[in-house]
Structures are given as structure tokens and as C-alpha cells.
């Protein structure tokens, strides 16, 4: 009897030991992976800094030409006359403006795959329009119902979108949807004012962010960090 108990106890002890060993090994692996990742990131950054001196002028030239063509297309759209005098004047003006604003127009845009982006945009546009339509109906319901069941709150969440263009696209599409307004973006953290809990919940599912990540070809994850309840603050103030 005692022997069997002893054997069982030792077995359990061994199991626990093995578990602990496995956990320690996993921890070690993960820490090693993390350090290697940070090291590779640092190396990449160094390489980029080394290359940037040589690449900067090339990049500026590319930005200048692209900005020039965009602006010249805009000029032709405005002018709509095709004799030499108009076109040369347009070329001169576009070159002047491109020289002044090329670093602004294309400071942080990744080119290439424009066609895929355009196709995805047109594929996603009906979804956005439908979202705006349903949100309109919901806000109209909130405004017209006699009790006005609004429950204003500010949601704070962090996006996994990376470039500022996609941040702004997300912020503007949130603002465009009735009931939600983007108050501020601080280093990838969005502050969104939502009119009631349903709107906030729809926002927190991160569907819109996924769509924008899909259109602009970026990572697609979202998690709510926390919900600040504005009504509570208002109540405290009263």
C-alpha cells in the first residue's frame, strides 16, 4: 500500500518536473526568438540608414516625376485645351508646383500594386456605402425616438495599421459613418466618440479596419484596449 502511494507520488513529482522543464525550455526559446528579432530589426535599420544617403536623391527624383505627372493630369483636366501654348504653360506650372510640393505629396507612400488596390477599393466601396446607410438609419432612430436612448462614450483602441495614410483612411471612414467621430490619433491609438453602445460595439468588431487593411494591403488585427465611459464622467461632473 505504502509502496504504491510512494510510487505514485514519485511519478507525479517526475511529471511536475518535466512540465516545469518544458515550460522553462519554451520560455528560453521565446526569449531567444525575441532577441534575434530585435537584433535583425536593428540591423535592418542600420542598413536603411546606410543606404538612405545614396537613395535619397533617387527617391526625390522619382517623387518629383510622379508628382509632376499627377499635377499635369490635373492641369489638363482643368484646362481642357490641347494647343502647344497651353500645354507648355501647364508643364511649366506643374514642374514649379511639383518642385515645391513633391516631398509633401509622396513622403510616405509605397508604390506598386496600385491596380490591385484600385480593384479592391471598388470591391469594398459598396460595403462602406451600405455601412453608412445602415448607420444613418440607426442615428435617425436614435434622434427620433422620444426617449433619445443615446449613451455617448469614447472608445480608445490601438490599430495594427502601419502607415499614416491608412490611419487617416480609417479615421475618415469612421467619421464618415454617422454616429462615430474620430477625435484624435496618437501614435496608432484612436480616440473615437460613439453615440451609443450598439455603434461602439459595431466599431469594436474591427470590421472596418479589416476592410481598410485589405484595401491598402496591410496587417489586419484589432483589439479594444478599454472603453472610457463618458456618461459616467458627465454624471460625476453634475
Amino acid at each position: 500500500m505504502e509502496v504504491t502511494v510512494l510510487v505514485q507520488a514519485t511519478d507525479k513529482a517526475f511529471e511536475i518536473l518535466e512540465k516545469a522543464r518544458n515550460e522553462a525550455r519554451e520560455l528560453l526559446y521565446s526569449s531567444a526568438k525575441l532577441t534575434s528579432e530585435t537584433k535583425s530589426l536593428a540591423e535592418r535599420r542600420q542598413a536603411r540608414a546606410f543606404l538612405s544617403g545614396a537613395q535619397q536623391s533617387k527617391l526625390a527624383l522619382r517623387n518629383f516625376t510622379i508628382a509632376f505627372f499627377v499635377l499635369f493630369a490635373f492641369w489638363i483636366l482643368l484646362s481642357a485645351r490641347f494647343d502647344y501654348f497651353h500645354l507648355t504653360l501647364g508643364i511649366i506650372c506643374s514642374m514649379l508646383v511639383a518642385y515645391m510640393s513633391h516631398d509633401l505629396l509622396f513622403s510616405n507612400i509605397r508604390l506598386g500594386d496600385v491596380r490591385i488596390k484600385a480593384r479592391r477599393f471598388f470591391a469594398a466601396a459598396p460595403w462602406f456605402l451600405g455601412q453608412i446607410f445602415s448607420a444613418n438609419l440607426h442615428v435617425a432612430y436614435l434622434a427620433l425616438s422620444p426617449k433619445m436612448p443615446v449613451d455617448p462614450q469614447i472608445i480608445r483602441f490601438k490599430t495594427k495599421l502601419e502607415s499614416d495614410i491608412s490611419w487617416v483612411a480609417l479615421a475618415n471612414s469612421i467619421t464618415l459613418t454617422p454616429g462615430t467621430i474620430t477625435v484624435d490619433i496618437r501614435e496608432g491609438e484612436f480616440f473615437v466618440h460613439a453615440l451609443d453602445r450598439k455603434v461602439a460595439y459595431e466599431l469594436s468588431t474591427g470590421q472596418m479596419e479589416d476592410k481598410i487593411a485589405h484595401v491598402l494591403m496591410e496587417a489586419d488585427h484589432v483589439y479594444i484596449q478599454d472603453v472610457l465611459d463618458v456618461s459616467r464622467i458627465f454624471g460625476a461632473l453634475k
Partner: protein
Amino acid sequence: MSKEDEKGMSLIVKTITRLTVGLILLYGLYIVFHGHGSPGGGFTGGVIIALSFIHLMLAYGKEVAFRKLSEAAASFFVSLGAILFLAIALLGFTGGYFFLNFIPKGEPFRLFSAGIIPLCDIAIGLIVGAGLFAIFVALVSLKLEPERKE
């Protein structure tokens, strides 16, 4: 650029400004150059040109706007526009009197028509564009010291 410069407005305003400011400037130039054949003219186009720089200054702060158009350049363009306008007016004396149209009038609705009016438009555009920007800069950066009450 937007991540380094912490001055100015929020990221949304900055990015939209970044994308639109060139188009606004080009539109102002278009209005100036087509003023005699279509709606617009020197003053309107000049205001739009000035607004593009003011827009930049509002969104990004003073330094970025001055990198594009410094105070010295603005004052230079104001003076240049005024001198050009006066010179065009004085050149009328070659035909007889002040502000005489000394260039052949040309066909209507062409870009190069209407005699001296497009040249005047360009001069006025320079004055208004740079001058309005300079006025805005003066309003922003100069502070009147409050008078001391004795």
C-alpha cells in the same frame, strides 16, 4: 515628415494637407493664367495661392511653411509684382498714355489674348499671393505688447 514634426494639428489634418496642398497651388496658378478667358483672375488666383501656403502653415507650423516660401521671398514677390504692374502701366506711354494696351488684342477665349490683361493678372497674382501670405505671417508672428496702464 509628419512623424518628426510634433508641431501643428493632428495627424488627420496633416496627411490631408500633405495630399492636397500641391493641387490647391496648381489650381491657383490655373486661375491666374486663365483669368481673362474664364472666371477668375489675378486677385482670385492670388488668394488661392496664398491659401495653399497658409493651409500648410496652419497644419504643420511655421517652419515647414517658411521652408517653402520664406518671409524674404514673400516680400520679394510682393515688390516684384508691384513693379511689374507699374511697368506694364508705364509701358502704355509707348503708345500714348497710361495703361494703354500696346499688345495686339488677339482672338477672344484664347490664352494669349486680351492684350496686357493676362500680364496684369500675373502681376496681381504675385502681389496678392505673396502679400496675403505676408499679412497672415504678420498676424501670426507679430504680437502687440499691451500698453501699460499708468
